[in-house]
């Protein structure tokens, strides 16, 4: 069944898009991520312009992260104070990212910028995850115990001023690194159409030493608010959110996430991290391929001010 997308201005098969939503939802449920870094490139591959893809995915992530937030909320496994501080930075970052999209589009370099950001970010994060989880699997094979987190260890930024105590997370830390992390996540979210969960979770664990029990809930809360505001900002600034496309993706995503979550519980966590790392790396390599290999057609058309 074909349906014409009013903003992307092209006809798509509803069931195909629904399946894309289900598959991405399945993977996001399995790995506990928003899935933006998978969905945005997939939509671009289908032929949807990067501007529309980035903007539409932000509304999709809003839907998928709300289900997660509700589950963690009931278990009180999220730190609202920390989420609020992260969001203070993230919202400024989102405005910056959405604004940068408008600037890059006007300059005809949005595709390049999105390609490069994906390559850089996914390449680094993917490689780090593969190495880290590979080591963890090796340790498990040899029967060694995993490294235990030392709660007392201090980083240089623990000396920064404006310290705040976050009761739920049991940390006492300056708000400057919290704002900075939030800003970066929000900026990348606006620019790349990613929720940033796969960045925020490690940042909270390794940099701020937030206990794992509240990390995912807090991260999802930040993702939810960032992506909800990105949806509004993209609609206002770039007019590139396709509500019809978003709805089909969301419905597929919400369904897929349920099955993904069940599948994820059957796999050991370090193996899950290895799989996720490989997936991230593969998407990054796909962008590298497009940038490095001589394109079939060196020419392309751009309609200034248009969505395409």
């Amino acid at each position: 069944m074909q349906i014409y997308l009013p903003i992307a201005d092209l006809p798509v098969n509803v069931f195909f898009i629904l399946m894309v939503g289900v598959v991405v939802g399945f993977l996001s449920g399995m790995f506990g991520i928003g899935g933006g870094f998978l969905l945005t490139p997939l939509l671009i591959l289908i032929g949807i312009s990067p501007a529309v893809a980035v903007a539409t995915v932000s509304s999709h992530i809003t839907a998928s992260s709300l289900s997660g937030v509700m589950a963690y909320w009931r278990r009180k496994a999220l730190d609202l104070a920390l989420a609020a501080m992260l969001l203070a930075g993230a919202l400024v970052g989102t405005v910056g990212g959405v604004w940068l999209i408008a600037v890059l589009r006007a300059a005809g370099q949005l595709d390049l910028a999105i390609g490069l950001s994906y390559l850089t970010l996914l390449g680094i994060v993917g490689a780090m995850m593969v190495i880290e989880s590979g080591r963890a699997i090796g340790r498990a094979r040899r029967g060694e115990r995993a490294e235990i987190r030392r709660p007392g260890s201090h980083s240089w930024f623990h000396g920064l001023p404006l310290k705040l105590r976050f009761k739920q997370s049991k940390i006492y830390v300056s708000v400057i690194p919290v704002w900075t992390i939030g800003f970066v996540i929000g900026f990348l979210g606006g620019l790349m159409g990613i929720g940033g969960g796969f960045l925020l979770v490690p940042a909270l664990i390794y940099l701020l030493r937030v206990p794992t029990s509240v990390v995912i809930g807090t991260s999802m809360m930040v993702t939810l608010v960032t992506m909800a505001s990105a949806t509004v900002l993209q609609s206002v600034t770039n007019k590139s959110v396709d509500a019809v496309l978003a709805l089909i993706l969301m419905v597929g995503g919400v369904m897929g996430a349920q099955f993904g979550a069940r599948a994820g519980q059957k796999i050991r966590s370090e193996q899950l991290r290895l799989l996720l790392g490989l997936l991230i790396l593969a998407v990054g390599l796909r962008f590298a391929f497009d940038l490095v290999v001589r394109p079939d057609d060196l020419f392309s058309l751009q309609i200034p001010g248009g969505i395409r």
Partner: protein
Amino acid sequence: MNRAAGIAIAAAALLCASMPARAEKLVTSLSAHRVMITSNFTGVDLTLFGTIETDASSVGRTGGYGLVVTVTGPRQPTITWRKERVMGIWVNAQSRRFVEPPSYLAVLGNRPIDDMASPDVLRRLQTGLAQVQLPQQVGGDIADVNADDPFRAAFVRIKRAQGLYREQANAVTFLTPNLFRTSIPLPANVPIGEYEVDVKLFAAGTMVAQETTAFEIIKAGFEQFVANSARDYGVLYGFATMFMALFTGWLGAIIFRRD
């Protein structure tokens, strides 16, 4: 060619030159003057019918008629980019700004366009993809370039690949010597706006009659509502989409609640 026909052509040419009323007259009819893009739109073919009305002065044309239907879509400034390799990666490096080229252009003929008139005549009438002017902005000036300019060639090639530009020599069919039909293919990605249909009749290397008509393509129903809301009420549209997302997520959490 017999003498009588030769004289008739000469007489017809004289009449054309001296009288504002043409010997041939085109009467055309489009199957629709408004195309609606609804949610199940996957492209459509419009049919154009026409007759050539003749009078005493136009009998005995030799070589038959040449008919060209040119369909021009709304004009849309477009930039053509050329990628170059910079530090190992391919980036958009050079660009040419085309000033208001048609977003859609179909040139449909009953035989090859080049056979219908001399190159000069075709260029003056802007008939055929190679003859249509596609002015580019060069510095402060606006100029058209020759047809084999790489940016112009690339522009036309990409537009053809998108199905938005086309030139077909056998698209117009004559059902009787004076009654013709053609179908105007409008692909799914066709831009919305006003379309001009220009029908030119050639005989013996000159244009003997011309007729224009028009149609419009609009978004209709739900598509129109969504597109208009997104364009005119960005804030409202953004909040509506956000609440739709929140509702879907909430519904999902309720339906699939596990704990």
